[in-house]
């Protein structure tokens, strides 16, 4: 018998993630974000799975499309949204912006450079091993990032040292416009794990139950000292690569088809209704998450922007010492 309470939690979590990114889209429309924005709509199941699989001491190093991973790692949503909206109250005082949230307490960080998340996660993994801690480092990449040299180097080092590293490949089959199938020599990334004598897992990333189970399995494997794991979760990106992407590379029909067929939230709603949950209860969850995100955005937008007078602070921890600077 399905555990509907647990299922509803998953549903709510996915709903909260989607509502968060919809708030970001709203913020962009209101010109509260003046740079790029990459949202994760369509990839909520992976974020929700991560939430369940992670422990507080674990580390996550994410990508340009990082909001769901941050939320899964326990980053304060309000501080995250404020950072995305470039506010002084943001996680990083508005310095980092949406591609560069850093939350040392929660062991969460991200980078805007594709592939560059993985070596950083490797560093966490080495620290955990050195200190004898049973934490796991998760490095996130897209399918595109799996072709970068950093992916290879990270796997080589992690596996040779049996480090507690999980490489999560969110395979939405697109790197901006480039089809995974057109540039990958293999039909999955997971199968490349054998080249590193690592565990490779492949899972439908639109099925939150499946991806949660596999993600937990991956974490257990790494946590128990059996070496690194590549877990590939297939999914679809519902919007452009970034907001404003003209998407010359796919038709509107194609995009609509993906949305219709592979929406992890809609798919899970079906499963929940099959399990006897009422549609209106599900709709209420989505509604309340949307309302919460909307309220949070309203608050954030009332926060101040950073004071231009502070633009030069924080380059170095130690003030640049210059002998006789007073002279």
């Amino acid at each position, binding site marked *: 018998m399905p555990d509907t309470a647990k299922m509803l939690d998953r549903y709510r979590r996915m709903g909260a993630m989607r509502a968060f990114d919809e708030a970001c889209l709203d913020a962009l429309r209101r010109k509260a974000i003046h740079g790029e924005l990459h949202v994760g709509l369509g990839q909520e199941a992976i974020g929700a799975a991560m939430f369940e699989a992670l422990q507080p001491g674990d580390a996550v190093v994410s990508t340009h499309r990082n909001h769901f991973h941050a939320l899964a790692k326990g980053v304060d949503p309000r501080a995250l949204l404020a950072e995305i909206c470039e506010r002084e109250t943001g996680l990083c005082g508005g*310095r980092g912006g949406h591609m560069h949230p850093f939350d040392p307490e929660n062991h969460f960080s991200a980078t805007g450079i594709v*592939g560059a998340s993985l070596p950083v996660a490797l560093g966490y993994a080495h620290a955990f091993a050195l200190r004898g801690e049973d934490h796991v480092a998760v490095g996130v990449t897209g399918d595109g*990032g799996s072709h970068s040299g950093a992916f290879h180097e990270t796997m080589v080092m992690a596996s040779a040292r049996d480090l507690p590293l999980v490489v999560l490949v969110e395979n939405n089959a697109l790197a901006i*416009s*480039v089809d995974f199938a057109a540039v*990958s020599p293999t039909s999955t990334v997971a199968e490349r794990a054998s080249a590193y004598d690592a565990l490779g897992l492949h899972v439908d990333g639109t099925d939150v139950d499946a991806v949660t189970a596999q993600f937990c399995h991956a974490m257990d494997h790494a946590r128990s000292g059996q070496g690194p794991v590549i877990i590939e979760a297939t999914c679809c990106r519902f919007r452009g690569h970034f907001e404003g992407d003209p998407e010359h590379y796919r038709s509107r029909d194609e995009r609509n088809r993906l949305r219709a067929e592979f929406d992890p939230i809609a798919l899970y709603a079906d499963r929940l209704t099959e399990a006897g949950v009422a549609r209106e209860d599900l709709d209420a969850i989505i509604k309340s998450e949307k309302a919460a995100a909307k309220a949070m955005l309203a608050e954030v937008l009332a926060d101040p922007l950073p004071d231009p007078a502070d633009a030069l602070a924080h380059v170095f921890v130690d003030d640049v010492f210059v002998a006789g600077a007073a002279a």
Partner: protein
Amino acid sequence: MSDRRNDRMAMGLPAVIAESIALEMERDDTIVCIGEDIGKAGGVFGATAGLQERFGADRVLDAPISEMAFTGMGVGLAQAGMRPLIEIMFVDFIGVCLEQVYNAAAKIHYMSGGRQRMPIVFKTAGGNIGSAAQHSQCLWGLFAHLPGLKVVAPCNPHDHKGLMAAALRSDDPIVFIEHKALLLQKGRDFRHHPDIPDRAYTIPLGEAAVVRQGSDVTLATLSATVETALEAAEIVADEGISVEVIDLRSVVPLDTPTVARSAARTGRLLVVDEDYLSYGLTAELSMRVIEQIGLDGLRQIDRLALPDVPIPAALSLEQAVVPGTDAITAKLRAMAQGN
């Protein structure tokens, strides 16, 4: 303005760049383009739009995110007698593949004693449009420090077309840095906008352009800052300060004589740069001018650039660090008031 001219001025900068590349690819079938999203998508800004349809997916190759591989492919292609154009989407990403650019492409002609030519264009986009520390840099100062690379950063559609053609015809490796903010503009958005002929034409690499004449202060800059400088010059003109604005067009070669001649006349030199202040263009050009006309050839010298700080995400902070009209006019006023 003729209808024809009007049409040309309505073209976005990316279309002008794509036109230049297409004209060169037509006349020279050894040109091969490789980069992320340059084919099917026509480039993230559209600066290679239509090329793949016209020249095929092998000459306009959509690459995986493997910059180390495809910059090196450029070197191998050049060695095999081709003329590669390699696109690094944003110049900020050069950290994953600088190796092939500066240790191979830049040095092979020299290391081979002149036997191996390296005709490669590394096309990329730099500059601030709100994308924070890892997606807003200019970095021409970085390339310019490394010998063997020519480094071009044009300021308007006309120059992009002519300099791209010159770059594709050159036998030397060239880093061609477009500015993201300019890539979002059309010909008519530019203050300084010469006609863009339909035919292919080249502009010699290393020739600066005096884009506004003046007698009180010489202001040298390049790329998107040329527009900002022209705006600033207009503002202070109303206050009686006459500014000569020079578009350097490239940092290697650097057209010191044109700047020095102007500075010798005005007695005041201001170098403005959107790239980081230290160890960059502002000091190099200043020193070269001093070397050319002497310490006593100038009454004043000053520089304005992005301070040595990662570029902040917030608009309020970004505006505080990127040299804008206000900062430039303030400098110009201060200089004009001095002696």
